[in-house]
């Protein structure tokens, strides 16, 4: 196919046009597909954490644990909430920059920062939860094995999460090579 033919094939790509009302709805934050998903996650987390905060004292013997252990549990929940809120801000922030090259650069540094926060907050949540639930346990061999299994699960989760972020960062870096 000749390049002229390709150009005309590209330029005459007719698809069902969208109505103004449909486009107008797309301009709203509440209908944005990614933001909608994060908001749903925030609501679910909010409800779960509120319930946990009201119940942990009786349900998980919070009254028998030292105060700093209780503080750590609250810190774990806050880590998770702050992480979700920052994710929302990142998705909402959009792309900035006067050229694609600049936009990719800006997005890459934002993504790197958020990826770091994401992994640190997950480590924080895992550490605080483990500390809370093991703080007044008298360990037996069986319980040590159980703890080791839990730590392994958290480590695998954190590795998978890091892998997802590295993939996204690599994707942008690869695209940036075309603009260097």
């Amino acid at each position: 196919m000749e390049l002229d033919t390709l150009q005309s094939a590209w330029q005459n790509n007719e698809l069902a046009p969208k109505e103004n009302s449909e486009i107008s709805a797309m301009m709203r934050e509440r209908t944005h597909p990614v933001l909608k998903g994060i908001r749903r996650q925030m609501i679910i987390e909010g409800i779960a954490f509120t319930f946990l905060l009201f119940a942990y004292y009786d349900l998980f013997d919070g009254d028998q644990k030292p105060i700093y252990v209780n503080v750590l549990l609250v810190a774990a929940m806050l880590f998770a909430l702050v992480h979700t809120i920052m994710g929302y801000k990142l998705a909402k922030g959009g792309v900035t920059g006067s050229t694609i090259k600049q936009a990719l650069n800006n997005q890459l540094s934002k993504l790197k920062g958020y990826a770091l926060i994401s992994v640190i907050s997950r480590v924080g949540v895992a550490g605080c939860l483990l500390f809370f639930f093991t703080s007044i346990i008298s360990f037996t061999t069986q319980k040590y094995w159980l703890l080791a299994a839990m730590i392994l699960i958290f480590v695998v989760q954190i590795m998978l999460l890091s892998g997802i972020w590295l993939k996204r960062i690599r994707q942008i870096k690869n695209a940036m090579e075309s603009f260097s």
Partner: protein
Amino acid sequence: MEEVPFLQLIDQHQGIIHKICRLYRDSSEDREDLFQDIVYQLWKSAPAFEGRSKFSTWMYRVALSVAITAFRKKRPAIRYTATLPEKHEAAEDPEEQREQLFKALKQLDDGDKALIALYLEGLNYQEMAEITGLTESNVGVKLNRIKKKIQQLLK
């Protein structure tokens, strides 16, 4: 920018968004999500549009940046072969030609897709340099390489 003139401009140029979505996403659901993301980000960036360049030039810059950086849902990967299936004769039907063109374009990496999209749209080197942040001579060098690759794929 007010909402009404913005909507009119988007209406005039929405073909650009459709083409970018088709170029960067495989499923119709993903294209729809990207379309919405682009419209949302264009509206958010609209106050920064000072009218020094054409609306379509500005739109290409924002839309391509969003398409490259936007979050992609995990889907089964579609694998494209290094060459397109052999055909007995060149496609005559415009839709078939478009289908072949997009199949070839999808094999490029994200950055090259952006450059070739601007070329196919008929933008000159100066406009392409303004959008991408490359120098004009660099645009020329890179485009030649991409065009050769496309022609190889379409052989």
